[in-house]
């Protein structure tokens, strides 16, 4: 997630050096960490994905491709496509809702910015489960929202809000909004105020100035926000379970089911996980190179 260098052509003594032994030594802990806790578990998952399921769960080390056949089975593909749909919608909504907020905070009085950021984070120090159940209390047919609407005579009967796809999207947006706001904030904050004012002064209406100048410059922040929202949203299972009444199964539920549910099929879960992992890695690589190239283009 490299952000572009926004300062201008100062001679690069800050350019990258070739690492000496000391530099490699300092990097060693990170390399070891990555090997031990990212590569090793992923390798184990990969091995499992080619194995057969044990009777009580776990695996039997007999090679099979049946798990990957399962991954492309229409039953699960349908759910995957639906998950992608929800994740994409959530991401778009988060971007639309969160960008103005990030912009507002980034352009606020510098002394207040941190407070605003804290204010964004504070709700997320409560338990995610309790927060989600609070939404149940708000959205249910005898809940706060419906009571309010009935009191104000805006509706004649309680609205069917809870246990619907809409409630799931609401919950997802609620969960991921800060993850989108923060990187965009970081991007906007680095824009020099003079740049923005210059764009606005040059006769461009605020909308054009925004679209043509500001938005493109904040692409890295947007890209980061998209990754931090879209990808985890694909793997979510609790929010949709609670707010969707268990009716909106997503790929995360399927995976969870293989390990913790009736299915007892670890290798299949591993295959699904590996497939997702590979897709995510590719997506990340793509987005990274895109943001790097767009930054280069802008210069």
């Amino acid at each position: 997630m490299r952000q572009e260098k926004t300062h201008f052509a100062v001679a690069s003594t800050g350019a990258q050096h070739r690492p000496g032994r000391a530099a490699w030594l300092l990097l060693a802990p990170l390399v070891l960490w990555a090997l031990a806790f990212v590569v090793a578990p992923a390798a184990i998952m990969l091995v499992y994905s080619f194995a057969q399921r044990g009777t009580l769960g776990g695996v039997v080390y007999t090679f099979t491709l049946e798990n990957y056949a399962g991954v492309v089975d229409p039953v699960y593909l349908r759910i995957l496509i639906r998950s992608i749909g929800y994740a994409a919608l959530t991401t778009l909504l988060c971007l639309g809702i969160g960008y103005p907020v990030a912009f507002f905070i980034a352009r606020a009085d510098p002394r207040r910015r941190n407070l605003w950021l804290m204010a964004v984070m504070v709700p997320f120090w409560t338990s995610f489960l309790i927060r989600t159940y609070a939404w149940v209390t708000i959205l249910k047919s005898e809940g706060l929202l419906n009571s309010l609407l009935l009191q104000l005579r805006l509706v004649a009967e309680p609205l069917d809000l809870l246990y619907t796809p809409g409630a799931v999207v609401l919950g997802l947006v609620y969960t991921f909004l800060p993850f989108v706001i923060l990187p965009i904030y970081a991007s906007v904050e680095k824009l020099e105020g003079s740049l923005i004012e210059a764009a606005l002064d040059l006769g461009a209406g605020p909308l054009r100035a925004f679209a043509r100048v500001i938005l493109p410059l904040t692409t890295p922040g947007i890209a980061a926000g998209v990754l931090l929202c879209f990808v985890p949203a694909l793997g979510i299972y609790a929010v949709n379970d609670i707010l969707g009444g268990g009716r909106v199964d997503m790929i995360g539920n399927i995976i969870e089911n293989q390990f913790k549910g009736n299915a007892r099929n670890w290798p299949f879960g591993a295959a699904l996980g590996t497939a997702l992992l590979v897709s995510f890695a590719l997506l990340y690589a793509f987005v990274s190179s895109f943001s790097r190239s767009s930054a280069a283009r802008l210069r």
Partner: protein
Amino acid sequence: MQLARRLLATWTGFVFLFFYLPIAVLVLYSFNASRLNIVWTGFTFEWYARLLEDRVLVRTLENSLIVASVTTVLSVALGTAGAWLLYRYRYRGGSLLETLIFLPMIVPEVILGVSLLILFVTIGLQLGYTTIVISHVTFCFPFAMAAVQARLAGLDPALEEAAQDLGATPPQAFAKVLVPYLMPAILSGALMSFTLSLDELIVTYFTASAGTRTLPLEIFGRVKKGLDPSLNAISTVFILFTALAVFAIEALRRRNP
């Protein structure tokens, strides 16, 4: 521009309303007299009183705080080091390392949890604080690293040069010039790590042991019985406490820039 600013402010206001609505409900219902916490039946302080007697809940809160603190320290250390080293030096395989580091951020938590569990079992590491912290750091430190990387991207290299011209040795330049410059990003990474670790449920489920349960695990366990208001009470206490702490730190920071 004033109009634009005002529109943005109104929009932000609505978004904050959205953020805090469930929190308000959560806090309100911590005073709910009904144990089943589904309909409001009356006002009471009973649940707060119960908190004092609920050893288990308080113990798990302690565990969560300890784990989150250690995770934050390690994440910030690894993240800052990683961001700095990758910025400064052109390592072979550097971008591969970076991708690997960021992977846990975006992998479904169930997969992360199960694969780490299997890893720990394979190498014979007993589940407990160590395994929880390892799992938390694995997905928290990429956030810390990303924050510092972003800040580094805006670094004016002349700054460091100037320090060295003035006679500072590289370590001194690092400590006296770079670290203060990076501090906002370090703090933001720390904040992110702390938050993530505190509320982490799924990965922790797989890597914790009976003696080291965290608060989210405990809450998750109690869902079956219905989330009784003492869980709301502990969340409220917690949010109050951390909000106060955070604002206190911020106030201190502004007095000593």
